[in-house]
């Protein structure tokens, strides 16, 4: 039986200050599914990972009720709270129980600022806590660091005092490792166990960005799906959602070979994206061994219209192969036109290139 929480801190991509009420959390549309799960390091917690599944059969969130001991400066206490992840295993928030607030070494209850700071810490996937062992948790709060090394032995900066809740470093450490440790691994295992072409299709059709991104990343990690999904992923470069578009570009960057269909898909994306993304697509194409003639011609056209910048043209002309300069080849003919372009940088570079090829 769940008790209503005092505070729920839920990550939204828009704003950390947006807090959903607990009732919304548990009354979202969908079906609750329970996954049996036990880990020795967390043996007192309820051995279940909860999943809310939407009508499309995709996970909305995962959650776990954590009941675990934390020892601050020799004194141990239990923490009792809910941790939540989104439908693809990214930290989403926590729920503290009304009569079980988190406390510090002096037994003082966490205040709103403390919870806020904890939430910020838990959103940091690359926190300094990642690299520390528990016995390395010493916080030097002195402001005068002149002549001193920070008081913990780990190499990593910034110093702990800048990231943890004051007087609750072990609580922070424990929760961060719960969020990013075995529980998250299990969530990812659950997700990966469902992987199939049909599941990937559903994820890519979802209106949640985390589903799309997870699907793209799964295609990258699972080459057996690439033939079927590369084109769909490349098309997502034109997504209005910058994070989805970025994930799509990152996937494309991992592909050693892009066939003509995929190259043309990239080419088709160029007019629909912003300048920065266009630049990234161009750099993708420039790193391919063999680029389709139609793509090369299109890019040269962009050079002619000065939509592409000169430092890039110096790389673009690497795409020109000797056979392009044979008589009758449209690329060679286009280069002749560029050799008399009104922009001297274009004409000079083109002439220099043509001379080098003779």
């Amino acid at each position: 039986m769940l008790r209503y929480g005092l505070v729920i801190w839920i990550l939204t991509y828009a704003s950390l200050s947006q807090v959903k009420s607990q009732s919304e959390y548990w009354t979202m549309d969908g079906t609750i599914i329970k996954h049996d799960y036990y880990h020795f390091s967390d043996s007192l917690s309820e051995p279940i990972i909860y999943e809310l599944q939407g009508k499309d059969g995709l996970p909305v969130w995962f959650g776990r009720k954590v009941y675990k001991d934390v020892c601050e400066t020799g004194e141990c206490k239990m923490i009792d709270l809910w941790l939540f992840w989104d439908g693809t295993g990214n930290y989403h928030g926590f729920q503290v129980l009304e009569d079980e607030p988190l406390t510090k070494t002096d037994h003082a209850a966490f205040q709103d600022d403390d919870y806020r700071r904890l939430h910020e810490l838990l959103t940091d996937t690359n926190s300094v806590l990642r690299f520390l062992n528990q016995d390395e948790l010493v916080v030097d709060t002195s402001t005068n660091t002149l002549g001193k090394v920070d008081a913990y032995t780990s190499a990593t900066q910034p110093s702990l005092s800048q990231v943890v809740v004051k007087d609750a470093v072990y609580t922070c450490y424990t929760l961060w490792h719960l969020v990013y440790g075995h529980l998250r691994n299990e969530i990812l295992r659950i997700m990966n166990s469902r992987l199939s072409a049909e599941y990937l299709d559903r994820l890519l059709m979802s209106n949640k960005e985390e589903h799309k991104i997870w699907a793209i990343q799964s295609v990258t990690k699972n080459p057996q799906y690439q033939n079927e999904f590369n084109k769909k992923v490349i098309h997502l470069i034109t997504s209005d959602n910058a994070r989805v578009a970025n994930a799509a570009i990152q996937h494309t960057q991992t592909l050693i070979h892009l066939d003509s269909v995929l190259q043309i898909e990239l080419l088709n994306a160029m007019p629909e994206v912003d300048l920065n993304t266009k630049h990234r697509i161009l750099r993708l194409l420039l790193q391919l061994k063999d680029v389709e003639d139609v793509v090369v011609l299109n890019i040269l056209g962009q050079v002619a219209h000065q939509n592409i910048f000169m430092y890039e043209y110096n790389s673009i002309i690497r795409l020109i192969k000797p056979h392009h300069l044979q008589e009758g080849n449209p690329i060679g003919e286009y280069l002749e036109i560029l050799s008399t372009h009104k922009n001297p940088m274009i004409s000079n570079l083109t002439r220099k290139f043509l001379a080098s090829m003779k």
Partner: protein
Amino acid sequence: MWNHGIITLLSLLSYNLFANDKVWLEVEQFDNLGGWVVDAQFIDQMGSSYLLAHGLGEPVQSAVTTIKFPSKGKYHLWVRTKDWAPFPTGPGKFHISIGDKIVPKSFGIDGNDEWHWEYGGEIDIDGRKTEISLIDGSGFEGRVDVLYFTKNKNDIPPSSFDELSTLRQSMSKHPNSPVDVGKFDLVVVGGGLAGVCASIQAARLGLSVALVQNRPVLGGNNSSEIRVPLQGDMDHNLFPKIGNIVRELSTGYKGEAGDEKHYGDDLKLEKVKNEKNISLYLSTHVFDVEKDGNTISAAIGRNVITGIVYRFEANYFVDCTGDGTLGYVAGANYKMGRESFEETKEPKAPMFIDSLTLGSTIHWFADEKDTISDFPVCDWAIQFSDDYYLKNTRGAWNWETGFYWNMIDEAEKIRDHKFRVIYGHWSYLKNKMFNEYAKWKLEWMAYNLGKRESRRLVGDVFLTELDIINKVEYEDACVTTKWGIDLHYPNPQNSQYYPGEEFIAIADHDRDFEPYHFPYRCLYSNNIENLFMAGRNISVSHIALGTVRVMNTTGMMGEVVGVAAYLSAKYNCTPREVYQNHLDEFLSMLEN
């Protein structure tokens, strides 16, 4: 250690030479600089330090000095200055007062953006002891190098660099020969992270070290003068203990353009001063070397305030200047710009060699105050519009410029361009968006350029992108980089509006980067036998620089070079011979 408090005393040793009929007045040696700052970045290009009225739009307090003219009478005044933003004329106006009279001419706004002499007219000197003031007119970067008083109307000072240098030297009271400060085991030129780490490492191993830095503070780009944070993972090192000195020097602060206290100038200085084997020479710019064949025997440096020239003799030298200055004057092989695909076969390389480099940054920030303030309309600055404007209240990494310009020869132009960008931006926000920014005020702006790339000295291994992507393993691998190849280009949208003078960058940064351990042979010159290098001027291609250039990594290079220098001294061998004959011991020392 030199500081501005000592400058007053040292004015006795200044360039103020008095012949019967002339006075040469180096302004950086004024008794009281007021609000003017000493800019020593461009000595090699324009000949000297100079004073800069870095007032962020508010006139700075006058610089004042008292001199004794050789005799009464009429003197012709010449002032060496420039109009740094002649669009059509710039804002860097200043006046000069001599005694109780202000010279009528406004200096620094004649539309000539080369350093040149402006004639101030005939000045009547009626008393030998005379107070001279530089009176800033705007707070917008007026600048002055030297005042020359001469009774001879035809005695027009020269403009060419060489003639002027000769004249400057002849007018100096200092001896023609450099002051010999002694012989060291190691001279480290450049006091950024790489140089400080190399110095401390070598000193702790027992070498006598001279650390020569051309700024009044240590830290380079990580000092309070430039305010770039230390970056680069040090937790995946091949040799885990490499990086320990970097950690000693780090405040942990990760922000760009933050408060002065975050960058640990005092911390770095304290660390160096605590090492009894280090002799520190601040505000000293190395501009020449003495050589014996392909070996450097001494580095020659000039104090940027007093003008005194020093000679630093050593068995080994380290170039941590960033610009590869020491190596350059010694005749070391170097590269600059982008290597061609034909040369390196790097996937990211252009077809032909070109001069594009990573850009440089001037950091700045504004604060919101309790009261409303205004800021002048800056017609001479870069203009923004409703079609293109930015809303920053502080600088960021991508406020970057100078991609197409020479980072050394045109460094002042690049720095001044960034001034025009920031002032133009701020003018736009304060005047076109006044309601939103009424209470915001410019608080701080760097005037020292934060460079990312210029010369790269060539070693026995020239690291390229291919080494990294093919994970080539070198037996002398010693420093680990995990930053990812991070290359910056002009932002395409910015290019549309400001072609050829872009000031916003985009980054191609591979963040899924496996740690790569690069070799020791990138850290010494392939043709100057006793020259090490550490920092952004090591033996890497433009593309490979993208991963090694962050300061935690350059600091680790310094630590490694310190060890290599120790072994060179121990075995009386060259840096190359450390690799050839003592590699096992070298690697063992890095391990332990």
